[in-house]
C-alpha cells in the first residue's frame, strides 16, 4: 500500500521547501520566467531559475556572443538584464499567477551589490522561493567570479546574505577552479541551503578559415552535452563531502541525464542549453523521468540521490 502511494513520486526538498519535481530550468536559458512562449507550460516545471539580475541594468557584451561547438555552445552574453528595480516593478508580481517555484538569480560585482539587490527584493512582498547566487559568471570582468574562486570570499558573501533572508540561498559554483569541493564546503558552513553546480566551463572557439576568434570577448562559457561529464564529476565530488543538497547542471537534455545526475548526488537538476533548442524540453524531461522511475524498482525520485555504484 505504502509503495503504491509513492508511485512516481518526484517530490524533493531543499531546506524546508518542497518542490513538485526535480526538473528546473537554468539561469540565462529561460528569461525571467514571465515571457515563456506558448510552447511550454511553465507550471509543470519544478522551478524556474531566472536569468541573473544585477543592481543596474546591463546591455551585455558586443556580438558575436554565441557559437555552436561540438555537442555544445559557447556564450558570452555578459549578464544582459533589466536590473533589479525594473525587475521588482514590472515582473515580480507576475509570479503570483504561476504555480511553479521561482528562484531569483543574483549577480554582483562586490558584496554590497548582492546585499542591495537582496534587500530590495526582501523589502517587497513576493512569492519567490529563494535565490541562486551567481558567483561564477566567466563572461564579465567582475561577474562575481572573484567570489567563486575564493573560499573566504564565498563564505563571507554567503554569511552576509544569510543574515538578510530566510528564503533559500543556493550558491552557484564554477567549474573553473582548482577545488570546487572546498568552495562548496565554504558555502555550506556559512549557511547556504544548497549549491548548484556547474556554471559554464571557460572555452574558446576559433574559425580556421578566417583566423578569427568566434566570440567577441575571446573566451566564453561552454555549455551543453559537451560538459555533462564535468558536471557529473563535480556533483559527485560535492555529494561526498557536503551535507546540503546539490543541484546538478550541465548538459541535461533527457530524463536519463537527470537520473545520472541524481545518481551522482544531485537532489534536483537544471536544464540549460537544451531550452534553446526546444523550450518545451524540460516538460518532456519530467515525463521521461517519471517513465524511467516507473519502469525501474525505484518509484521515488529522491531515492536516486547519490546511489551511484562505483568500482572503488
Amino acid at each position, binding site marked *: 500500500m505504502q509503495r503504491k502511494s509513492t508511485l512516481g513520486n518526484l517530490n524533493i526538498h531543499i531546506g524546508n521547501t518542497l518542490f513538485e519535481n526535480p526538473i528546473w530550468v537554468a539561469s*540565462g*536559458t*529561460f*528569461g525571467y520566467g514571465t*515571457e515563456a*512562449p*506558448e*510552447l511550454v507550460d511553465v507550471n509543470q516545471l519544478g522551478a524556474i531559475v531566472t*536569468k541573473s539580475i544585477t543592481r*543596474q*541594468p*546591463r*546591455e*551585455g557584451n*558586443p*556580438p*558575436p*556572443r*554565441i*557559437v*555552436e561547438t*561540438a*555537442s*555544445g*555552445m559557447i*556564450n558570452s*552574453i555578459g549578464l*544582459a*538584464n*533589466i*536590473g533589479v528595480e*525594473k525587475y521588482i516593478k514590472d515582473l515580480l508580481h507576475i509570479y503570483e499567477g504561476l504555480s511553479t517555484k521561482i528562484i531569483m538569480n543574483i549577480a554582483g560585482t562586490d558584496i554590497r551589490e548582492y546585499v542591495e539587490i537582496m534587500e530590495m527584493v526582501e523589502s517587497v512582498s513576493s512569492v519567490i522561493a529563494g535565490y541562486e547566487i551567481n558567483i561564477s559568471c566567466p563572461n564579465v570582468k567582475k561577474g562575481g567570479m572573484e567570489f567563486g574562486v575564493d573560499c573566504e570570499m564565498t563564505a563571507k558573501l554567503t554569511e552576509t546574505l544569510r543574515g538578510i533572508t530566510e528564503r533559500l540561498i543556493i550558491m552557484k559554483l564554477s567549474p573553473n577552479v582548482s577545488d570546487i569541493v572546498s568552495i562548496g564546503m565554504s558555502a555550506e558552513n556559512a549557511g547556504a541551503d544548497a549549491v548548484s553546480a556547474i556554471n559554464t566551463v571557460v572555452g574558446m572557439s576559433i574559425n580556421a578559415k578566417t583566423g578569427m576568434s568566434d566570440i567577441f570577448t575571446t573566451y566564453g562559457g561552454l555549455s*551543453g*552535452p559537451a560538459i555533462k561529464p564535468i558536471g557529473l564529476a563535480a556533483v559527485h565530488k560535492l555529494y561526498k563531502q557536503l551535507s546540503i543538497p546539490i543541484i546538478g547542471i550541465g548538459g541535461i*537534455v533527457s530524463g536519463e541525464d537527470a537520473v545520472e545526475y541524481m545518481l551522482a548526488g544531485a537532489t534536483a537538476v537544471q536544464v540549460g*542549453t*537544451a*531550452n*534553446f*533548442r*526546444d*523550450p*518545451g524540453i524540460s516538460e518532456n524531461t519530467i515525463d521521461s523521468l517519471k517513465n524511467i522511475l516507473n519502469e525501474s524498482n525505484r518509484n521515488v525520485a529522491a531515492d536516486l540521490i547519490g546511489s551511484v555504484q562505483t568500482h572503488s
Partner: protein
Amino acid sequence: MIIERARIKSNRQLAHQIWEMQFEAPNIAREYMGSGQFINILTVDDWNHPLRRPMSIASSEDGCVSIIYKIFGNMTRELTQKKSGETLELLGPLGNIFSKWDNGSYPILIGGGVGLAPILNLKQACDNNKILYTMIIGARSGNEHFIRHDPVKNIYLTTNDGSMGEEGTVMVPLERLVKINKNAFIFACGPEPMLRALKEFAVNNDIQAQLSVESYMGCGVGFCQGCVIQRNISKIQSHSYHEKYSLVCMDGPVYNATEINFG
C-alpha cells in the same frame, strides 16, 4: 510560434551550392505573416549539433513553406541529403516582416547570396498586388544564380567576376537605377558587407531602406540573448538594457537602415 515536424515535399539544387527545400508545414504556414519571417530548423536529431539553424522563409503557399539554403559546412551539406518524405522539426514562424512596400513608393528589392530568399518572397507579394518594382540579385559568380538577368522586366543580376549580368556588386545597378525612380524604397537581405554598403548608400542619398539582417542565433525566441545587433543611438546611458543592443530574433530581422549599426 509553433514547433512542427514537417514533411519534406522537395529538396532540389537551384545553382552551385544553392538549394531549395519545401516543407508541408500547415500550422507554420497558417501563422506566417509575411516576407522577412524565418523558421528555426533542427537539422539533426542528435545532440552533436545542439542548436537550430535560422532560415528565411522564401515562399509560403497552400500549407507549405520553403527555404533557400547554401552549403556552408557539414550541417548544410547534410541537409542536401534529405529526401522528400523525410521530416524535419521546424520552429516558427519567427521575427518581423518587411513593411510599407505597398505604400505607393517604388520598391527596389535587393538580395545577395542566400539573402535572396525573403526578397523572392517579397517579389511574389509585389506581383500578387500588381506593384511595380525593380529587383537586383547579387552573387559572386554566375553559377550561383538561378534566375534570369532580364532588364526588360526590371530584374538585374550582378556577379563579382562578371560571368553573368552586370560585373560588380548590387551597388552598380542600384546607383544607376535609383536615379530614375524618384520614389525608391530599398528592401534588402544579404550578407553584412552588402547591407553595410546599402545602409551607407541609403543614408547618404536620403532613401528609405529596410534591411533584413543575418545573425548567429541560439534559440530564436529571446531566451539566449545571443543574436544582438547594435542600434544606432546617439546617447547611450551608463546603465541600460535593450537600448544599445536589439535582439534580432524578437525585434528583427527587418530593421530600418537608420535604426542599426554594423560592427
